[in-house]
């Protein structure tokens, strides 16, 4: 009986290893600018990018027919100011993804709170759990940056984002 259990366990582990061994990892960087159009209110203001998913370009040499991205986790996200040298007046930021597909629910990928006064850039703390893999199976999705301001701002605000994802694919 014990031997039967061990055999099943061994078979399961072998199968699991086999599945894993076919997975590949690729790191990609999304570099873009979020523009928040003023007037902006004290509190949280959203900015969004429409991100078209082009798997061929994303995976480069690793692309093959039938490739599917199964996991996408945020490796890092750094936000810096384009208009000035500091992120003065910004108290916190949250990065999320959303999709028009009803099957896909919004995911928060990372957060920084508070932002040190005088910082020139902010590195968000990536979520421990969010897996945006299914977003990379869509034609496009939205990347949203919620920027919390200490006070109202009449001007536009432009922020440069360097967002790195760890992708797993077959």
């Amino acid at each position, binding site marked *: 009986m014990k031997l039967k259990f061990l055999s099943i366990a061994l078979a399961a582990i072998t199968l699991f290893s086999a599945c894993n061994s076919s997975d590949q990892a690729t790191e990609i960087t999304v570099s873009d600018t979020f523009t928040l159009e003023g007037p902006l209110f004290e509190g949280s203001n959203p900015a969004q990018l429409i991100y078209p998913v082009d798997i061929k370009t994303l995976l480069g040499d690793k692309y093959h027919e039938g490739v599917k991205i199964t996991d996408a986790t945020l490796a890092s996200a750094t936000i810096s100011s384009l208009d000035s040298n500091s992120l003065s007046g910004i108290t*916190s930021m949250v990065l999320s993804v959303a999709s028009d597909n*009803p099957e896909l629910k919004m995911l*928060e990928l990372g957060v920084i709170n508070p932002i040190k006064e005088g910082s020139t850039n902010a590195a968000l703390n990536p979520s421990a*759990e969010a897996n945006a893999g299914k977003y990379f199976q869509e034609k496009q999705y939205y990347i949203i940056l919620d920027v919390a301001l200490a006070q109202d701002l009449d001007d536009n605000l432009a922020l440069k984002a360097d967002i790195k994802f760890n992708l797993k694919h077959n």
Partner: protein
Amino acid sequence: MKKILFIAFAAFFGTILSSFVNQDAAGDRLIGVWEPSNGRARVKVEKIGAKYYGKIVWLKEAVDPVTKQPKTDKNNPDPNLQNAPLKGYRMLKDFVYAGKDEWTEGTIYDPLNGSTYSCTIKMTDKNSLEIRGYIGVSALGRTDIWKRLEVKKK
């Protein structure tokens, strides 16, 4: 004959297009600032893409009595997101306008316990919403009435 066909096609596509536009406009009635019945928060509904999301823009008790700092999402099941500010947090997510004054497919988050529930929204009049949060089936849930707030425009 060609002219008649063209007019018929134009009218047909015009009708379809206008029904999409009307559907959009009907769904957008959810956009605005709303207050739950307990009066402890205000939630601003916005549209991202084709869906509707509501974030907390005001809290009656905005400061954590223990830390004396603005409240954070300390009950979030994801430990790395627990310091996200509660003011600004999207507690309503992913609502799709289903017609007949109803928004479905969404979720509602309770920051008091860090739980997310399935949710439907029914607009009973232009200033009132029935928000029903539930687990599994809609029959097993709770309904709250939210009221629209008029806000200053910049």
